[in-house]
């Protein structure tokens, strides 16, 4: 991992997000790219936007007008996703997905799992409140789905997940994604070039640039 030039500690990148947030979905490619280009290991943490949502989900709060505006926003800000994004018709339950992310973390596959699950929800129209969707994501990234199913059934990671949700609340996370790049906190989605600028300002340089020096 990249070492921050001012200390021997690895440069920390932490993303507080919720799978049900479209802006978090749009940040996935950016953060994955950041990990590749800057040799950092981002940590994805849960910020549970809608704890009131039941496991079966609720009808979508977005009116047709809001959906149209969201799609227009995506077309302008992240055009590469415009054609493939599918806006869910209902608000989905994300807590089991957070539990599964903890399970994946313990196996060193949290980054891949997160990307697979966002794709399933936002490009394939799957419901992340349905455990079957979590098992598909697990299988895609090399996690044993039967082990995950058992962990979800036994609620092995429920307490740890709740603690993570509480941590996000305690440090004042209010929107998603909230991205910490070293000392800098970025509230909400932003351009990849901004992430680059923040990295560079803190003395963290892309692999390619380092290779040229």
């Amino acid at each position, binding site marked *: 991992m990249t070492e921050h030039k001012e200390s021997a500690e690895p440069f920390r990148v932490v993303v507080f997000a919720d799978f049900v947030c479209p802006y978090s979905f749009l940040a996935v490619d950016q953060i994955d790219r950041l990990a590749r280009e800057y040799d950092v290991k981002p940590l994805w943490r849960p910020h549970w936007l809608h704890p009131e949502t039941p496991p079966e989900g609720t009808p979508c709060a977005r009116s047709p007008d809001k959906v149209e505006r969201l799609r227009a*926003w995506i077309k302008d800000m992240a055009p590469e996703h415009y054609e493939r994004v599918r806006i869910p018709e209902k608000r989905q339950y994300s807590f089991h997905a957070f539990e599964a992310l903890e399970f994946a973390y313990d196996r060193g596959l949290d980054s891949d799992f997160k990307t697979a699950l966002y794709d399933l929800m936002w490009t394939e129209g799957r419901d992340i409140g349905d455990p079957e969707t979590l098992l598909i994501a697990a299988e895609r990234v090399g996690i044993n789905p039967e082990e995950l199913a058992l962990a979800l059934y036994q609620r092995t990671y429920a307490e740890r997940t709740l603690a993570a949700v509480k941590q996000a609340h305690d440090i004042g996370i209010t929107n998603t994604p909230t991205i910490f790049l070293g000392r800098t906190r970025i509230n909400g989605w932003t*351009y990849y070039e*901004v992430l680059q600028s923040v990295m560079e300002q803190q003395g963290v340089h892309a692999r390619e640039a380092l290779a040229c020096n």
Partner: protein
Amino acid sequence: MQQCYLVDSANAPWKRSSTEGVTFACQVLLSGEDGGPEALRFRFDDCPSVYAHMHLTAQFQLLLNGAMDFPRGVKHLEALAIHYTDHNMPYGPFAVSAGHDMLVLHPKAGGIISMANLEARRQINLGGRLFAGLAADSERRPLPDADHGTFKFLMPPGFGPAAVIVNSPAHAALTMPAPEFGRYEVVLEGSAIIQGREIGPPGFRYVRSDEPVEPIVTGDAGASIAFLSFDKDALEGGITGEGLAAEAAEAMARAI
């Protein structure tokens, strides 16, 4: 340094134009070509997505009519509303509807640059401030040291730049602090006597001075006036004639 500009917006010519497929009518109220302030009035046709962009100077947008919807962050603005950004602070995309009518007020020429421009993204003001609020959300208070009249904050006191609406009956002199970094004084209702001229809505005065300036006096029917004061961010940015600034100036010239 003292600057003073008086603008009778109601009698300025309108022009139809478009930028990046977004159509609108526009008044150029102050061009900024003399190094002074730049003020524009836009009436966007209903549009689901006015592209994300930024200006290279601080900006007040005063929404006089209609609505602006930001899918994330700022959310829904309905007239009367304020939207403030520091220089190089991007915003949008946003939807406009319901008879949109807005003043765009800069302390100097700021151009416009689409956020599709990758170089622009690298020049975003990372510490920049953005504020948006509805007049309807703010409580009206009695005007201090006056028998009649009220005021309300459009922006929280202490934010830096300031926006206040003062309502006052006829023939009241509205004394304000020195406009060190520049201030727009916009007539929203009624009329005001400024330097011997009667100005109706949405006419305005722009003043910048280290000393207090001649107060605005409300007309026969009283007036509602928005005082929009810049802070030191007004000194930043601007059109330098090079690189991104040249592009921003050209883009603004094409648009209006």
